[in-house]
C-alpha cells in the first residue's frame, strides 16, 4: 500500500479507537492446525499465459483469478436424510482494462489455449464497452504482494467423515422430537473450502484458502389449528469443524424445540409503539441491511441503481463527517481481519491487504466501503488514498466488484448485558433470532421479524408473544437507540447469501453486535385472515 501521511494518521487513529473497543469472540478457536497451501504450479503457468495474452492485445491492466471451490452439504428431516452432496468447481476469470473500460471473461477450459481465448475475449469486451463510456476507470495504487493465507482451523470440515455429520444432525433431530407437539425438524450443514489464486499485471501473486461452515436447525410444532416454527440462530463462521462441535446441537435441540411448542400458546401481540430490545441474534441482520448496505459506495454513486438500489447515505459530499447516523454511543466498524468472521481474508480480489476502519464514529458517518476504482470518487472528501479492500467475486466465473466486509456495532463502555437492559425497561418487546426481513431500495423503511418474542413489563419478562414484526426508518431507528450492551454481551451473526450485482452474486459476511434498546418503535401484528 502506498499511502499519504494524512491517510496514515487517519487510519491509525481510527484503528486505535476500534481496537480499544474491539471485543473478542465468545468462541476462541485453538491455534491453527492446518497450514496454508501455496499456488499450484499449473495455475501459475495458466495465469501467466492469460496475462501475456491480455497485455499483448492491448490491456493496460489485467488480473487473473483461478478458483477451486469444494462444497459439501448434508440435509436431514426428522429421522432421515434428505440429501448428501459434494461439488467441485474449477476455472479461471480474466479481467482487463483497455482505454479505461473493463472486460471480463471466464472459462472452465483449463488449458493454455483455453485461458488465452478467455483473455482475448475479455480484451474484446473491454474494447466493445468503449461505445458507451463517459468515465474512465482509474485504479488507486496498491503495492504488489506475494504470499499465501488460510483461514485458521483446527480441523478442516471437509475432512470430517459424512457419517459423523449425519449422526450429529440426527441426534439433534431426535432430541427435538421428544418435545410434545413438535412434529417436524430439519437440520443441515453447508461446508466450503475455496482455494483462490490472484495474479495481476502489476506483480501481485497471492493464494488464499478460505474455510467456512454453516449449520442450520429448524423445528415446527403443530396443534389442530395452528403451526409455529422456531429456527435456531446458528451463525455461519469462517472456522473449522471445532466450531460446529462447540454449538452442541444434540444438547440444545430439546430447548429449541420447546420454544416452538411454547409459541403455539403465546399471546398474539397488540400492535403499537413499544421500547424494543434486540438481542444480537436479531440485531446483526438489521445492521447488515440498514448500515452495511447503506454505506456501500457503489450504491451511493448509482452503480447498483437498477438492482439492489441506491442509498440514503448520498451524495458523499453531503454525508461524510456530517450525517448523524445515531447517538454518540454508536460506533460501527468495518473489518476484514476479525477472527472467525465470514469475510476475513488477507487480501481482496484486487490484492489489497485486509483493512479495518470506522464507518460510524460516535454516531457520525465517517467513511464508505471501497474498491480500487472507487477511491478517486471520494479521495478529496476523506483524505483516504487506499482502497479499503472490498473487491470480491463469488466464484472464478463472476467479476469482482464492491462487496461488504464484516460490519459490526462496537460494545458500549459499561459492560452490561440483555438482563440489565430488560431490568431498565418498563414497557417493551424483546426479540431473539432473525425472522422475515425486508428494506427499501434506499435503505430507509425496513420491517423485520424474529423467532421468539417476549413481553417486558416493569423490568421483567412477563410472557411470550407471537405474530410480531417491527417497522421503522433507518435514521429514526438508530437515533432512538439509548442503551447498548458491553464487551461480554458481544456476539457475531452472519450469512452466506448476501446478494448484490447483476448477474447477482452471493457474499459471505459476518456482523458482530451487542444487545440494544430502541425507544418507541412501531410493532405490527402480522397475523391476517382476510
Amino acid at each position, binding site marked *: 500500500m502506498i499511502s499519504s501521511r494524512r491517510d496514515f494518521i487517519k487510519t491509525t487513529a481510527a484503528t486505535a479507537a476500534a481496537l480499544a473497543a474491539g471485543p473478542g469472540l465468545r468462541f476462541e478457536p485453538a491455534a491453527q492446525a492446518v497450514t496454508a497451501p501455496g499456488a499450484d504450479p499449473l495455475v501459475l503457468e495458466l495465469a501467466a499465459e492469460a496475462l501475456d495474452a491480455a497485455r499483448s492485445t492491448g490491456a493496460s491492466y489485467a488480473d487473473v483469478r483461478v478458483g477451486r471451490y469444494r462444497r459439501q452439504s448434508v440435509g436431514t428431516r426428522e429421522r432421515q436424510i434428505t440429501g448428501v*452432496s*459434494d461439488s467441485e*468447481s474449477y*476455472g479461471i*476469470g480474466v479481467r482487463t482494462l483497455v482505454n479505461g473500460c473493463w472486460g471480463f471473461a471466464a472459462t*472452465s477450459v483449463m488449458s493454455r489455449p483455453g485461458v488465452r*481465448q478467455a483473455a482475448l475475449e475479455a480484451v474484446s469486451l473491454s474494447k466493445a464497452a468503449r461505445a458507451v463510456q463517459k468515465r474512465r476507470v482509474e485504479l488507486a495504487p496498491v503495492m504488489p504482494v506475494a504470499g499465501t493465507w488460510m483461514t485458521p482451523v483446527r480441523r478442516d470440515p471437509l475432512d470430517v467423515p*459424512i457419517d459423523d455429520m449425519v449422526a450429529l444432525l440426527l441426534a439433534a433431530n431426535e432430541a427435538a422430537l421428544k418435545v410434545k407437539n413438535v412434529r417436524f425438524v430439519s437440520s443441515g450443514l453447508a461446508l466450503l473450502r475455496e482455494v483462490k489464486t490472484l495474479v495481476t499485471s502489476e506483480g501481485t501473486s497471492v493464494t488464499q484458502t478460505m474455510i467456512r461452515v454453516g449449520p442450520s436447525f429448524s423445528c415446527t410444532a403443530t396443534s389442530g389449528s395452528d403451526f409455529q416454527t422456531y429456527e435456531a440462530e446458528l451463525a455461519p463462521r469462517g472456522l473449522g469443524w471445532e466450531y460446529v462441535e462447540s454449538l452442541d446441537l444434540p444438547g440444545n435441540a430439546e430447548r429449541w424445540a420447546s420454544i416452538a411448542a411454547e409459541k403455539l400458546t403465546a399471546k398474539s401481540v397488540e400492535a403499537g409503539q413499544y421500547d424494543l430490545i434486540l438481542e444480537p441474534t436479531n440485531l446483526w441482520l438489521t445492521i447488515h441491511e440498514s448500515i452495511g448496505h447503506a454505506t456501500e459506495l457503489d450504491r451511493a454513486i448509482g452503480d447498483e441503481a437498477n438492482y439492489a438500489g441506491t442509498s440514503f447515505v448520498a451524495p458523499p459530499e453531503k454525508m461524510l463527517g456530517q450525517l448523524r447516523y445515531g447517538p454518540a454511543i454508536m460506533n460501527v466498524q468495518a473489518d476484514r481481519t476479525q477472527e472467525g468472521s465470514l469475510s476475513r481474508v488477507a487480501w481482496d480480489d484486487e490484492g489489497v491487504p485486509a483493512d479495518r476502519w470506522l464507518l460510524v464514529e460516535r454516531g457520525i458517518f465517517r467513511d464508505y466501503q471501497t474498491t480500487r476504482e472507487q477511491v478517486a470518487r471520494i479521495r478529496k472528501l476523506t483524505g483516504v488514498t487506499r482502497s479499503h479492500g472490498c473487491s470480491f467475486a463469488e466464484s472464478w*466465473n*463472476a467479476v469482482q466488484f464492491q462487496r461488504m466486509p464484516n460490519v459490526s456495532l462496537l460494545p458500549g463502555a459499561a459492560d452490561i448485558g440483555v438482563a440489565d437492559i430488560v431490568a431498565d425497561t418498563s414497557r417493551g418487546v424483546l426479540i431473539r433470532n432473525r425472522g422475515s426481513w425486508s428494506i427499501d431500495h434506499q435503505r430507509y423503511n425496513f420491517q423485520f421479524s424474529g423467532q421468539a418474542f417476549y413481553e417486558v413489563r416493569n423490568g421483567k419478562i412477563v410472557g411470550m408473544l407471537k405474530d410480531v414484526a417491527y417497522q421503522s426508518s433507518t435514521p429514526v431507528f438508530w437515533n432512538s437507540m439509548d442503551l447498548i450492551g458491553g464487551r461480554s454481551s458481544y456476539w457475531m451473526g452472519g450469512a452466506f447469501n448476501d446478494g448484490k450485482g447483476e448477474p447477482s452474486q452471493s457474499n459471505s459476511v459476518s456482523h458482530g453486535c451487542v444487545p440494544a434498546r430502541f425507544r418507541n418503535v412501531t410493532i405490527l401484528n402480522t397475523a391476517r385472515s382476510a
Partner: protein
Amino acid sequence: MRHPSTPAPENPRTQAPENPRTRDASSIGAPLLSRDDARALTARVLAFSAADQTRVTVQSRWSGNTRFADGSITTSGGTADTTLTVWVTFGRRRASSSTNVLDDASLKRTVDLASRLARLAPEDPELMPELGPQTYTTVDAFVAATADLDAETRAAAVERAVRAATEAGKPAGAIFTAGFLEANAVAVAVATSNGLFAYHRSTEADFSVTSRTPDGTGSGWAHGGSRDWDAVNAAGIGRMAAQKAVASRNPQAIAPGLYTAVLEPQAVTDLIPLLAGALNARNADEGRSAFSKPGGGTRIGERVVDERVTLYSDPADPALRGQPFDAEGLPVGRVVWIEKGILRNLAYSRFWAQKQGKQPTGPPQAGGLALTGGTKSTEQLIADCARGVLVTHFFYIRALDQRTVLQTGLTRDGAFLIEEGRVTRALKNFRWNESPLLMLNRLEDIGRPEQTAAGRLMPALRVRDFNFTSLSDAV
C-alpha cells in the same frame, strides 16, 4: 398524465451478423453441448459407475452480459461452464457429487466420491428408484438471436436505450440511467442407468433499465424478457424507464391504509410465483400450509380464489416454452393448479404422489407459470378505477406467515394515484403486507396476460383493499 405502455419489439435487424454460439467456433469455452455430445458424455459417466442405480445430470451454459450506469458500461462479461452431477444409489442409500472438470480422471473421481458418500449415508425410507425411458414433449425454447448476442451488439443496444432515455428524460433535465442486459444459452441433459435420456436447450434474454431524475425525486424502471432477443425492444425500454422517472417526480404522501391497487404485469410477476411456491402437496397434507384443510387433508376441490382466475404451468405453451422434464428426468406436462378459482392440483414429488395415490407433477414452476382470466389492457384497468394506487413493480419481498402466504415488500420506481380513471399524481413509495392468495379473493378485474419474462405470462390486476402499511422515503 399518460401511462407509459409496454414497448413493442424493435425491427429485428438488431440480430448479430455472426452466429458464434450456434456454430463450433464459440468465442469462449466449449460450445453448448449438443444432444449427441450430452448422450456420449452421460454414457461415459454411467459406464464408470458400479452402483445399483446411477443418474447423471449435465448443465452446459453460456452467458453474456453488459451492465451500465451513469452513461458508461461498468462491467461486461462472458462466461462458459459445464457442470455434471452424479447421483449414485446403493440399496436405499443415495448421494451426489458434481464437478465441472470433465476429463476421464476427474469424472471417475466424481463417481467414486458419490459412491463413497452414498455408502456412508443412512438408508432413505423415501428413496424412489431412478426412472427408465420416458417420452417428452418437444419444446423449441432455443433462439439463435439470443445465443449469439455478442458484446458489440449488446453495447449497441445499451447505447440505443441510453439515448432514448436521455431524450425522454429531457423534461427533468440530465437524467441518470443504469441497467443490465443479459443473454443466456443453456443445455440440460439427464440420463439414468435404467435407460432414461432427456435433453433440452433454451435461451433467455433480459434487459432492464432504471432512470433517475437529477433532482433525486423521480425514479422509473422498465424491463423486457423473452427467450428471443429480437422480441426485446431496448430503445422502448429505455424510453419507458425515463418516462416513468419524469412522471414520478415530486411524489406526495397519502396516508397508508387499504387502497384499490392496479398492479402492472411486472408487479404481478413479482407476487404470483410466491403463491406457486406454496403449492407443495406434502406441506398441505402435513397441516403446515395455506392449502391444508383444517382437521387434515388438502383443500383440493375447494374454491380458493376469485372464480375468474386460472393458474397453470405448461412447458409446451408457446408463451412459456418451459423445460419439459425435471431434475430426475420426470416428464413435466400441463398442470392446472387453479381452475376458475378452484384448487385443482398441488405439486407432488414422486415419493409423496406414490404415498397419496396421485400423479407426480414435478416442481410447481418447472413448466413456466401463467395466470389468465382477463382480456383488458392495463390502461382499461386504470380507466375503470375511481380511486386507487398504480404500482410499477415491487422490491424486497419476504414471507411473513406461511399460514396465509402473507408477504411484505415495497413499491418501487413509480407509484401513482388514480382518480376518476386517470393517473393524477406521483405518490411516495409504500411498504405493504399482503398475501397473493388473499388478494386474489379481492379481485376487481384481470388484464390481458403478457409475457413479462421467459416462462412468465402475467396480466395486470385491479385489487380491492390492498394493504399498504407504511410510507417509505425511498425514491
